[in-house]
């Protein structure tokens, strides 16, 4: 009897250590990448200069480049990455299927469409755009949910309905981009694939505040999310108010998604990739919202650095993540097909 308990405890300790160790490692990588985002550019500034600028000192040349150009870009990447990563993994865990993520089922497209409509047609202020993108995301979730409920709820139907909704919303975005007089390429890129280009410091607070409020909330709900993953009955049996928890998680996730989308556009596949990658790194015993958020940050920053500096042309981050992410989705499909998971 005793050795068995000991074994279980050791196993738990081991998983715990792996989780903590990996989370620390991911944090370090994210910090390093954030530093690189500030250091690299047309001129490369050493880390001392960057730190001095951040502490408020005036360094010749570096102040403008770091504070005005690179800092907003880095912050947008960090917060959007965290938002996409966390929200993606929440949906994937709650619906118990890696395919059921905001990219595939079209929630981010809902936010994009609302934001583009506000910008192009109403020419509204930042605040209105943020609110509209939240409403767009929430409405899309509701519509998809009710349309796919039917007699028997199935993830398959949810995904198919989502793809249909997405086709419509993409048509809306395409149309709005065509009629807008300010239809420059950068804007189209931002709203179709996501880009950190042109991030401005004064546009960031809504996203930052939302992530700083919502991320702790969902982190506190991690245990409940893990129980939800066991299924409705099990979760209720374990004393979870499933409806309330689910509602809270969905609202928090959609808020983060919507504001991240309103700020950077729907960066392709981050919400889809972050969860599964984090799971593989920290093991499957935890829901791993924090690791997923960190992986989201790392993916966005790394892809943006690659997009900026690896080629002769500068690519927006969404193009890079799309090229990386889509093959992974295909790989996942092939594996699921072989296992017969559908």
């Amino acid at each position, binding site marked *: 009897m005793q050795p068995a308990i000991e074994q279980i405890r050791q196993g738990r300790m081991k998983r715990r250590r792996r989780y903590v160790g990996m989370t620390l490692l991911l944090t370090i990588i994210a910090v390093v990448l954030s530093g690189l985002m500030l250091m690299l550019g047309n001129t490369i500034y050493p880390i001392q200069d960057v730190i001095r600028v951040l502490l408020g000192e005036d360094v010749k040349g570096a102040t403008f480049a770091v504070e005005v150009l690179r800092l907003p870009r880095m912050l947008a990447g960090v917060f959007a990455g965290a938002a996409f990563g966390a929200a993606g993994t929440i949906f994937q865990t709650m619906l118990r299927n890696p395919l059921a993520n905001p990219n595939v089922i079209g929630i981010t497209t809902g936010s994009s469409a609302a934001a583009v409509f506000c910008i192009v047609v109403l020419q509204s202020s930042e605040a209105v755009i943020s609110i509209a993108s939240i409403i767009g995301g929430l409405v899309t979730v509701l519509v998809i949910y009710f349309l796919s409920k039917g007699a028997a709820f199935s993830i398959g139907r949810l*995904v198919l309905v989502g793809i249909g909704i997405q086709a419509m919303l993409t048509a809306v975005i395409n149309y709005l981009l065509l009629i807008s007089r300010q239809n420059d390429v950068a804007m189209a890129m931002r709203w179709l694939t996501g880009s950190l280009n042109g991030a401005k410091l004064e546009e960031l607070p809504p996203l930052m505040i939302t992530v700083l409020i919502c991320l702790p909330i969902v982190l506190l709900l991690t245990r409940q999310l893990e129980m939800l993953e066991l299924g409705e009955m099990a979760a209720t049996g374990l004393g979870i108010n499933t409806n309330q928890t689910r509602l809270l998680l969905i609202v928090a996730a959609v808020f983060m998604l919507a504001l991240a989308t309103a700020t950077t556009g729907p960066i392709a596949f981050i919400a889809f990739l972050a969860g599964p990658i984090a799971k593989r790194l920290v093991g499957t015993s935890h829901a791993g919202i924090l690791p997923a958020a960190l992986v989201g940050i790392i993916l966005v920053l790394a892809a943006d650095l690659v997009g900026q500096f690896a080629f002769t042309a500068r690519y927006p981050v969404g193009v890079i993540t799309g090229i990386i992410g889509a093959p992974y989705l295909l790989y996942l499909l092939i594996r699921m*097909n072989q296992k017969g998971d559908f």
Partner: protein
Amino acid sequence: MMQTQIKQMHTPKHFPLLLIGTLVLTVLCILASLAFGSRTVGWNELLDGLFRPAVQSYEADIVRERVIRTIFSFMCGAALGVAGALMQSVTRNPIADPSILGVNTGAALAVVIGIAFFNISTASAFIWFALVGALLTAIFVFGIGSLGRGGATPLKLVLAGAATSAALSSLVMALMIPRSNVMDQFRFWQVGSVGAGNLDSIYTFLPFLLIGLMIAVVTAPSLNALALGEEMAKSLGVRTGTLKLTASFAGVILCGAATALAGPIGFIGLLAPHLIRLVLGPDQRYLMPMSAFAGAIILTFSDVIGRLLGSPGELEVGIVTAFIGAPILILLTMKVKVRGL
């Protein structure tokens, strides 16, 4: 109510009625397409433009311009409608449509590669590139979608299509960003419009359309057998492998050619066959030709709607069809047992 529905499903007895209806609609939509637009043309000018080449007036010229546009949109619609019907019956899958399966994006990528690296600019060059792209993508998507148990279920196919589409469109972006001239050409092509059609594109399109339609009509009886199931079809003497290959080839030719010339126009291939099936039932021999008409009519009407809504400019037809088509897709998913089929 129920009984009549079942009858409709099994006998195409509504065929004469449908034929008359189709002809009336065809005439109506041709007239609408000629008359409406950013400038509405009256009856007399319409006749001037069509039958009195001596008359030179602004309105008459508009009508003559619109004739080409109308013919072109009829051809595209027919091609897309039949392509959808073929893909649906080959995969025995109600949600197959070139746009949903990512075949359009494959054609798009090939066209962009052509513009960027081979400096192509003529309709005939576009078509060959698009065909190769569409063919490769179709093979790829079907390959991935039919892995594993149960073959190509709607869900697997759609997801494989969506993923492939996402990957390919990222590549399209990656190719375009450093090349602003390609971007300019591509941006308007990407929305899907029949406005760019001219005589040249009609002549280029024609052989592909005819070959595709011919294959569709010829293979229709065997496709009927295939609908009973692979085993059954084999025991009825159908070579299912060859049949599937030929029919999908025709489907890809049709949608590839239409996509090359008009840009990716979604959902016609989904809508047209389903509408016809609703009235006539699943007999492929009637379904194929009638889907061609249905596709042509839907596309042309969508184009007219787009021109009226977007006036004084136009709302590209690809946007209109997405709006009509996506709800139908959702409706279908709600009715179909997703696991099944």
